[in-house]
């Protein structure tokens, strides 16, 4: 769980997928960018400003985040519309104005309707009554509704069943495309990492061992990636979900 000399420059509207074996430092990278962890050395620069020491809650103005656990991105004992209202004010001052009003409610309906989950008709329901997939879909809308400069996705489909995971992934792509959002997406799934996005980085032992652009990426296969990994790291790729995948291909 550490980073070792990571040097990563992200340009606007890049959609980077991040892969690597367990403990490669993928989540640590996101946590360092988001301000959950402070780096021992090195800096985090955002739009030319050094934000290395900025507390987490103050840099979220620029960053939307969706976690692996659907429970983490939403407040279960509060209603759908209250969750949305909190997300709309990402990084802004929260005062004594009413959180939800009819204008906002209309905006929420419009944002939720494209999900096709009927959430727009369940605004007053507690989020705790929703399924994991519904909660994750809501979390994505919440992470992106205030148009963050950077979207961080931390294996956000990993804990969903395959079908729901696919739906959420399609939804993610759609939201990113429409908002032209700069995105970092950590995934365990090499297929996903190759198909989505316009840049791919691979990590191992806290370092970036592979960084390919859209053009190179389009010609790569999962096999190539695994080979690249084993070449660069000098060890076998250890990841349960990948073993299966390799057997299928082999």
């Amino acid at each position: 769980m550490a980073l070792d000399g990571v040097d990563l420059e992200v340009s606007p509207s890049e959609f980077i997928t991040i892969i690597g074996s367990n403990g490669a430092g993928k989540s640590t990278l996101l946590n360092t960018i988001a301000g959950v962890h402070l780096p021992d050395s090195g800096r985090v620069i955002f739009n030319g400003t050094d934000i290395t020491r900025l507390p987490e809650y103050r840099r979220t103005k620029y960053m939307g985040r969706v976690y692996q656990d659907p429970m983490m991105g939403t407040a279960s004992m509060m209603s759908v519309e209250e969750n949305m209202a909190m997300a709309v004010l990402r990084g802004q001052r929260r005062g004594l104005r009413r959180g939800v009003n009819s204008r906002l409610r209309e905006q929420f309906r419009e944002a939720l309707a494209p999900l096709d989950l009927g959430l727009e008709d369940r605004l007053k329901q507690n989020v705790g009554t929703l399924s994991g997939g519904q909660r994750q879909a809501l979390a994505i809308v919440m992470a992106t509704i205030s148009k963050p400069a950077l979207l961080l996705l931390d294996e956000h489909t990993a804990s969903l069943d395959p079908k729901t995971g696919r739906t959420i992934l399609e939804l993610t792509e759609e939201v990113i495309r429409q908002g032209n959002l700069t995105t970092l997406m950590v995934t365990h799934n090499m297929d996903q990492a190759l198909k989505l996005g316009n840049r791919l980085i691979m990590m191992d032992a806290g370092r970036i061992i592979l960084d390919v652009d859209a053009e190179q990426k389009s010609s790569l296969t999962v096999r190539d990636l695994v080979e690249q990994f084993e070449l660069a790291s000098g060890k076998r790729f250890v990841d349960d979900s990948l073993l299966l995948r390799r057997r299928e291909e082999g």
Partner: protein
Amino acid sequence: MLLNITSITFEQGLAYALLALGVYLSFRTLDFPDLTVDGSFPLGGAVAAVLIFGGGSPLVATLAAVGAGLLAGIGTGLLNTKLRINPLLSGILMMIGLYSINLVIMGRANISLLRVDTLFDNLAHVFGVSTSPTLVILSLAVLVPIVIIILTWFLHTNIGLAIRATGDNAQMIRGLGADTDKTKIIGLSMSNGLVALSGALVAQDQGFADVGMGIGMIIIGLASVIIGESLFRRKAMSWILLSVVGGSIVYRLFVAVALRLGMPPGMLKLITALLVIAVLAAPRFRGTWERLSRWKGRNHA
């Protein structure tokens, strides 16, 4: 006798309802088991009693009591958020410290208010009646709903949503840019302000403030909250707050009946503790109970 029980039930139920609302704010809204309550309740009583005894206006004295409670809550919040002391311990430290502070404020262990005019006496003068339990009940029956309306409004404002989210999913609301240290401090401050208000009103109602009047208040508040929640099971915020008030009244009814049935007053805190244990443990045994009744049903069939 029945009338007497009813009157005591409502008089105390409403006066302690503000305590229960305060406990609801810390325990449920913030998910912070705040034991400051045992110190901020007598703090409210002490501040109000000293000022009234010294010839101050009862209204100003009551507001000062609220102010003292707000400060106590801020103190606990700072211990927890800035010094990173665990929530339970922060509350206990503040509670213990407040015991001495309350003694210093009062200058002795108790102050009688029987010979001076309290807020309720003032109200009686205004309406040209004599001070009676009925007057106390009526004035509290106006005050408590006003407090509920203000709380409901506040918990639906943007800052109120952030405070509720702090107890629900702190990581999430931090991720949305709210300073959870601040939301905790605000919530604890309001909670203890309410508790101190309750202490100030109880002292004026019973005619004295005592340095020991806070012992077990956290459990009484908690008992009211969980009785209210389990009896009324409401979802909307205003109804939940009303349920808590209802819980406080039901608790007082329970106490009044128990005392009338001959329970020694000294047993009250033990019985209250057992009551809270029973309600907290109930969900654990619900499964067992259902299995048992299913098994019985099969045997009967």
